[in-house]
C-alpha cells in the first residue's frame, strides 16, 4: 500500500508528463499577464519552445515566478483572478501551434547585490516526463550592474556558449527567451542542491 504516507516513508512522489490534454484545465484568463500589457513599466517576455529537431513544441506549458521590480519576493494571492493592480509574481502560458509563448510582466529587480536578476521558469510538455526548471536572466542593457552577468555564480560556472542559453535577448518591448529542449543550443536546465 502506498497511498498513505507516514514519517518513515517520505520518498518524493515522482513527476509525470503534463500530457497533451491540459488545455481546458490549466490555462485561465489573464494567466500570462502578470501586469496589464498597457502599463507603463510592462515588458514582454516571449519566445519559442523547440525540440531536438528544431521543430516548435505546440503542447508545452511554461510558468514564470519572479521578484517584483524592487527585487522583493511577493507573497500575494490573486494570480488566478487578476485584478489588474496586484502583482503576484507568477504566471502561466501554454504554447501556441507555432511553439510560441508570451508573458507580460515587469523586469525583476536585484534580490542580492552579488547576483544577476532573473525570472525562474518551469517547463512542462507532452513528451517531457518531468518538469524542467531554468532561469531567464535579464540581458546587458537592462540591468544596472552589467558586470554581474559575468560574476554571477551560476553564469560564471558555465562555458560561455551554455551561459548564453540563459540570457534573454533585448527587444524594444522587452526581451526574448527561447527554450530548446534538446540539441544545438540546448537550454541549461537546473537541479537545485
Amino acid at each position, binding site marked *: 500500500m502506498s497511498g498513505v504516507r507516514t514519517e518513515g516513508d517520505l520518498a518524493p512522489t515522482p513527476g509525470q508528463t503534463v500530457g*497533451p490534454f491540459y488545455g481546458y484545465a490549466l490555462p485561465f484568463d489573464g494567466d500570462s499577464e502578470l501586469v496589464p500589457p498597457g502599463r507603463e513599466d510592462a515588458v514582454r517576455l516571449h519566445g519559442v519552445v523547440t525540440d531536438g529537431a528544431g521543430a516548435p513544441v505546440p503542447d508545452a506549458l511554461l510558468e514564470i515566478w519572479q521578484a517584483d521590480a524592487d527585487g522583493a*519576493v511577493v507573497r*500575494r494571492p490573486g494570480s488566478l483572478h487578476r485584478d489588474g493592480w496586484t502583482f503576484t509574481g507568477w504566471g502561466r502560458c501554454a504554447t501556441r501551434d507555432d511553439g510560441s509563448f508570451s508573458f507580460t510582466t515587469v523586469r525583476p529587480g536585484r534580490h542580492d547585490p552579488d547576483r544577476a536578476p532573473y525570472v525562474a521558469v518551469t517547463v512542462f510538455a507532452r513528451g517531457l516526463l518531468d518538469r524542467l526548471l531554468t532561469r531567464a536572466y535579464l540581458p546587458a542593457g537592462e540591468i544596472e550592474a552589467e558586470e554581474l552577468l559575468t560574476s554571477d555564480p*551560476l553564469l560564471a560556472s558555465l562555458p560561455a556558449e551554455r551561459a548564453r542559453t540563459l540570457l534573454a535577448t533585448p527587444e524594444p518591448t522587452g526581451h526574448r527567451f527561447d527554450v530548446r529542449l534538446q540539441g544545438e543550443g540546448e537550454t541549461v536546465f537546473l537541479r537545485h542542491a
Partner: protein
Amino acid sequence: MAHPGRAGHRYGRGVTRTTALPAHSQAEISTEIDALAAEGAADGHRGPQPRLDYAPYRSSLLRHPTKAPQQVDPEGIELWAPCFGERDVHALESDLTIQHAGEPVGERMVVTGRVLDGAGRPVRRQLVEVWQANAGGRYVHQRDQHPAALDPNFTGMGRCLTDDDGWYRFTTIKPGPYPWKNHRNAWRPAHIHFSLFGTEFTQRTITQMYFPGDQLVGLDPIISSITDPAARELLVADYDHDVTTHEWATGYRWDIVLTGTHRTPTEEEGA
C-alpha cells in the same frame, strides 16, 4: 461490427506523432520497458523520478535534454513558491460532479490525501489542480478525438487549496482508460493529473495518480519511465473504505510528498 464512419478515428487521438518510427506492438514496447528496467536495476542510478530519455514513450525522443542538469544553489525567488488563497479558488471547485446541470455518468468517487514536504511537514493553504478524462476515457479537449462520448455533465477539471494539515479532497467520477498513438493497441491506464506547488519553487510538480489493481499500469510506458518499482507504487492510490461513503461515493486515498526544502519555514507557515 465495424463503424465505417469512424474508420479514421479507429486508432485514437489526433495527436501529432513526433517520430517516424513504425507502430510497434505492445509486446515490443513491453520488451523495451523490461530492458530499461533491468538497466536501471543494474546501474544503481535509478532515482525516484522518471527517466526523461525514455524511448518506449516515443514522444520523449526529441523532447528530453541530452545534457545533465546544472547543479545550482537555490537563491532568491527559488526559495519561495507563489501564493494562492480564497480569492483564487472557490470551495465548490473541488467538486467535479456539480459543474453542470445534471449528474455526470460514471462511478462517483472521492479522492483525498495530504500534501507533505520532504520533511513530512504539511503543505498548507496551497493550490492543487486536477484534470482527467470522463468515465468513457474522453477529455474535453479539441485534440482528443477518441470516439467515446463527451459527457455534457462533466468537464473534468477541479481546484482546491490544502487545509492547515495539508489535506486536499476532490469529488469526481472515476476516469476511464483510453487508447493513444504511442504504439499499436496502446492504452493509458485510468489516471488523474495532479498539479502541485510546495513552499518553494523547486518543489513545483505535475504528476498522475493511478488506480490500484489496474492491469494497464504494467503496460504503460509513461509510468514505466520511473524504473524503480517502489517509486512507481507511489503513484498508485489506495482504495480506502473509510473514505467511501454510504450510498454515495467510493473513496481513494493518495498522499503526495514533494521534494525537500532549502529554506526554514517561518512560524506562520508552520515550522
